């Protein structure tokens, strides 16, 4: 695949989009783990929601 004289521009834009999207995914995944861990910590210390269900309960 020949990209012509402006190859670097094309490659840079694709790489940048890839990088930013990857960053978004990583951020959201890390955030999810952190929130989960903190919820578990809170539950371990005996705090529950008023409804009596556990906060990590997904069902």
């Amino acid at each position, binding site marked *: 695949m020949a990209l*012509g004289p*402006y190859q670097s521009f094309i490659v840079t*834009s*694709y790489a940048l989009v890839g990088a930013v999207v990857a960053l978004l995914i990583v951020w959201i995944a890390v955030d999810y783990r952190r*929130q*989960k861990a903190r919820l578990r910590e809170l539950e371990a210390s005996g705090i529950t929601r008023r409804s009596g269900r556990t906060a990590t309960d997904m069902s």
Partner: protein
Amino acid sequence: MTLIDLANPTRFLSLTAKVLPWLAGATAVLLIVGLYQSAMAPDDYQQGATVKIMFIHVPNAWLAMFVWGIMSVAALGTLVWRHPLADVAAKAAAPIGAAFTFLALVTGSLWGRPMWGTYWEWDARLTSVLILFLMYLGLMALWRAVEDPSRAARAAAILTLVGAINLPIIKFSVDWWNTLHQPASVMRMGGSSLDRAFLVPLLVMAIAFSLLFITLHLAAMRNEILRRRIRTLQMMQAGRPTV
């Protein structure tokens, strides 16, 4: 599963848990197909290979506006219907929308450099997208500035709606402002005049990016719901009698 059911954050979480893997998978498949097709697409007779930037630029630009639209609907949900998930949706969408807007600007500028000979032109379309980007950042700053999310939600909702009304105005005023000084740069790729060889990969990429947004948005909403639960639990913890 109706909208009423979705109002319950716990139901929403369980639905998200079921749907997310499928969405992520579909996004990945479509992205791969889209990237393959973009790579195989022929060169444009005028732009050469740089036309390939279009396949990622246009979906990002489309999402930049689409996400603001989603946030506007969510803002209505906050202000009018008081839907409990509306401000969660609005807050979670803002950073993702800002990222897509940023990418639209950068890929546009990388496309513009070989085509127009400059990275940046104070052209109507570019300028209004830049202002959109600034508005995203302002909205994120607003969310960050107020510690209590339900109070921040109303302010952010109003700002989002004003921004939604303002965007076309900005677009037109910028058009008017700029044409006084210099002719607007013509985007050669008009949607309708596009050749099938470009149109198909572009559409696939657009759908793939939209799916990507929905996946990220649902995941970010889930994080936000958990964050609020933690906040409530911590407040309860603080309120327990000290021994």
